[in-house]
């Protein structure tokens, strides 16, 4: 393997001297962070000086990059730094006439051509996941020297196309590609400069269903990625691609793993844990406030391992979202955040001391009477979890209803013509914010980023003083002119036996969503309501007709369900199909007509 980086390292002092002698160039390598310092990766590349490093924070980026000589471009974490092309017809990353650079730690998705190298030497492509390139993942032309090290090639049409044997392919995983390695006219031996790679389920290398490989030190077999559908290509325990490479892993200093998470440039951080689940498990006897925290495991062999497991840390705090997670009240104040959970996926934050602030009394703005109801509207109070409405005829203490965190609420079930009194109070309760990290089993105990934060309200509820009091009179408003109301699914209800039958509900939902929001639909519904009551009455008297009507309504119910449940794409597909049928029939009729005319003439 050619070690391009050493070549570059040797040239650094020379370059440094040249730069020191330059008036215009400061000569010190800088790290340009995207998106902190530059909005786009290309903007950072364009602004970089020789020897600078463009460092890209985790996120999804849509760009076509043109790399420049002597400027390295690295993602912070390959697993979470995704790059897809803005113009799908162009390579996602172009390296043309640009020597001495590193492109590493990305996941390249949805590319036609992911990386194209033209006339560039001392290029290193490392710790990159190439997922689903429809033409080729890496194509390198003549007069190029490239190290392709510790990458994952998954489900690409072609993984590597090389026009010169100076493309070294080492420590990579090739899984489910149509073609793994190729060259124009097959002039280059696919075994040359191909070393210590892991091969599985590639179309061009399957012989009678058995995996074969190229190069020396090859290993075959399912690499046991954690979840390719979620683009998590970390290796699980038992993967044949562990400790089979050239060189060492920077993470655990063992023999290098194949793939994007082994070797010298692998992500140090484990993949973050998914958002945890929180459950209030407080008890009354003895009185204790507890929160059960559970989460899905990180399946990487460096975390989930039957011999040498990693672990998890649970971070928590009260009443304010986001880091720093500096809670300190768990286990009666003896278990400050973070808590080492060990090799488990559940932990109880027990014996908490939730403290909720008392809120100021809210201000009730309006109380408006309507039919058997009154609508209340009040000013929001900061930092509350909800509100409580008190109402009654003689006192606002007669009835209570909790509204949740809203500022408008309708009290129902009131007697028309009776004056009611209303007031509200604000409710506060402690909120706990919890997040979990994964910790690997290496000596450094590398820790993942925080999981997505989860929150829960627990502990006693504090009620603020009552607001001002307002009165309102619920009453029926008769619109002018007094017109009859036509409502109900008469025939369907009669046929399916009950107003709440699923079929009736489907028809009602269809009416509400697709018919009542447009004039033509409303007219159609109006016609139905006009004609259906007498028919429904007859149907009720004749049981034997009901199955027939149900059969007749079945396509309508099916159509309703399709319209309610299907995606716009599915709807468009069906419409397209129907249109095609109509056009086909129309053309056939035209053809038959013209044939008749020609026969007649």
């Amino acid at each position, binding site marked *: 393997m050619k070690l391009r980086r050493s070549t570059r390292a040797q040239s650094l002092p020379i370059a440094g001297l040249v730069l020191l002698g330059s008036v215009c160039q400061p000569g010190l390598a800088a790290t340009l962070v995207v998106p902190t310092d530059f909005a786009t990766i290309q903007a950072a590349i364009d602004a970089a000086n020789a020897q600078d490093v463009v460092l890209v924070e985790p996120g999804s980026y849509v760009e076509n990059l043109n790399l420049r000589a002597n400027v390295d471009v690295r993602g912070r974490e390959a697993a979470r730094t995704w790059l897809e092309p803005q113009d799908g017809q162009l390579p996602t990353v172009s390296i043309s006439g640009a020597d001495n650079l590193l492109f590493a730690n990305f996941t390249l998705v949805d590319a036609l051509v992911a990386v194209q190298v033209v006339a560039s030497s001392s290029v290193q492509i490392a710790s990159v996941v190439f997922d689903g390139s429809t033409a080729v993942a890496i194509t390198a032309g003549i007069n190029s020297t490239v190290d392709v090290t510790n990458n994952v090639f998954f489900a690409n049409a072609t993984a590597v196309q090389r026009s010169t044997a100076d493309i070294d392919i080492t420590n990579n995983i090739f899984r489910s590609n149509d073609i793994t390695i190729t060259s124009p006219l097959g002039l280059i031996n696919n075994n040359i400069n191909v070393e210590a790679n892991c091969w599985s389920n590639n179309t061009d290398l399957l012989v009678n269903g058995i995996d074969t490989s190229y190069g020396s030190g090859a290993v075959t077999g399912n690499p046991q990625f954690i979840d390719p559908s979620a683009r998590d290509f970390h290796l699980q325990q038992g993967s044949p691609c562990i400790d089979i490479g050239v060189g060492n892993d920077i993470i655990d200093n063992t023999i290098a793993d194949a793939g994007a998470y082994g070797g010298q440039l692998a992500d140090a951080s484990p993949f973050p844990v998914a958002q945890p689940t929180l459950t209030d498990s407080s008890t009354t006897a003895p009185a204790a406030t507890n929160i059960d925290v559970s989460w899905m495991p990180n399946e990487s062999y460096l975390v989930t391992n039957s011999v040498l497991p990693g672990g998890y840390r649970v971070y928590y705090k009260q009443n304010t979202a986001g880091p720093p997670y500096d809670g300190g009240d768990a286990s009666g104040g003896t278990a400050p955040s973070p808590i080492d959970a060990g090799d488990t996926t559940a932990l109880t934050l027990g014996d908490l001391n939730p403290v909720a602030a008392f809120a100021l009394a809210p201000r009730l703005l309006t109380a*408006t*009477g*309507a*039919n058997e*109801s009154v*609508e209340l509207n009040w000013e929001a109070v900061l930092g509350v979890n909800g509100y409580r409405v008190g109402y009654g005829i003689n006192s606002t203490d007669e009835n209570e209803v909790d509204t949740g965190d809203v500022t408008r609420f*309708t009290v129902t079930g009131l007697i*028309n*013509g009776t004056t009611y009194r209303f007031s509200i109070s604000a409710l506060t309760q402690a909120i706990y914010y919890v997040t979990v990290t994964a910790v690997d089993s290496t000596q450094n105990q590398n820790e993942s980023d925080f999981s997505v934060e989860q929150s829960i309200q627990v502990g006693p509820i504090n009620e603020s003083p009552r607001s001002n009091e307002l009165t309102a*009179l619920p*009453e*029926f*408003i*008769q*619109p*002018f*002119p*007094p*017109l*009859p*109301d*036509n*409502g109900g699914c008469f025939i369907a209800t009669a046929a399916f036996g009950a107003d709440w039958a699923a079929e009736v509900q489907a028809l009602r939902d269809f009416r509400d969503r697709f018919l009542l929001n447009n*004039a033509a639909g*409303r*007219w159609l519904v*109006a*016609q139905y*309501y*006009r004609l259906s009551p007498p028919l429904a009455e007859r149907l009720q008297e004749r049981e034997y007709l009901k199955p027939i009507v149900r059969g007749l309504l079945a396509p309508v119910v099916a159509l309703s369900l399709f319209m309610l449940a299907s995606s716009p794409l599915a709807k468009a597909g069906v419409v397209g199909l129907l249109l095609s049928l109509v056009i086909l029939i129309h053309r056939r009729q035209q053809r038959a007509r013209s044939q008749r005319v020609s026969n007649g003439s």
Partner: protein
Amino acid sequence: MKSAFFWPGFCVFALSLMIAGQVAAQGESASIESPRWSYEIRGGNYHPDLDLFETFYGDNKEDYFGLAGSYRLKEWLEIGGEYSQMRAKGVGILTSTQALGGSVTYRFNPVQIYSNFIFQRRLSQRVVPYVGLGLTVAEYEQDVEIQGSIDGHTDLGYSARLGVRFLVGSKGLTATAASAGNPDWRSYIFLEAQQISVEVDDIELGGQSYMLGFRMEFNP
């Protein structure tokens, strides 16, 4: 009701114009025809025949918009359909106190099918009067804030219309083109008055409308 006074006179006038239109069309060459299809965009005012409408909705007229399409059967006769809508915001009656209150939105959307009798002697006639008769059903909705809505439709009713069109432009109406075939398109600005009579539960929801519109005639 205003409409009771409207109908007899209108019918006599419509009948005379219809006969006149038919007679006028006799002179036309059978091979030359106006464009068959047309659409119209129209807007104006609607004056409901409800005595207390102004009390509840603040005015005795409301904005009114419509779309129509028609097909010409003869030079003097076309059939068409029209959908229009009116929306008024006002109050209702608070039943416990009989006072005006609440917030009510009233929508009235008549659907018509109609025949128009057209008095037209020449294809390039600049001013074209017409009368029409039609069948009408209207849907209505009364949306009471917080309380919910009442909706339904009227029984089948009648409509009549009287209007005049002013030729704006055309293509294919020159003598040469006319001798070669039918005109491609013709457009008009028009003024029209309508009387609608539709009832539900013996409540007359009809009224008069006065509209300005644009009409495009074409052969597809």
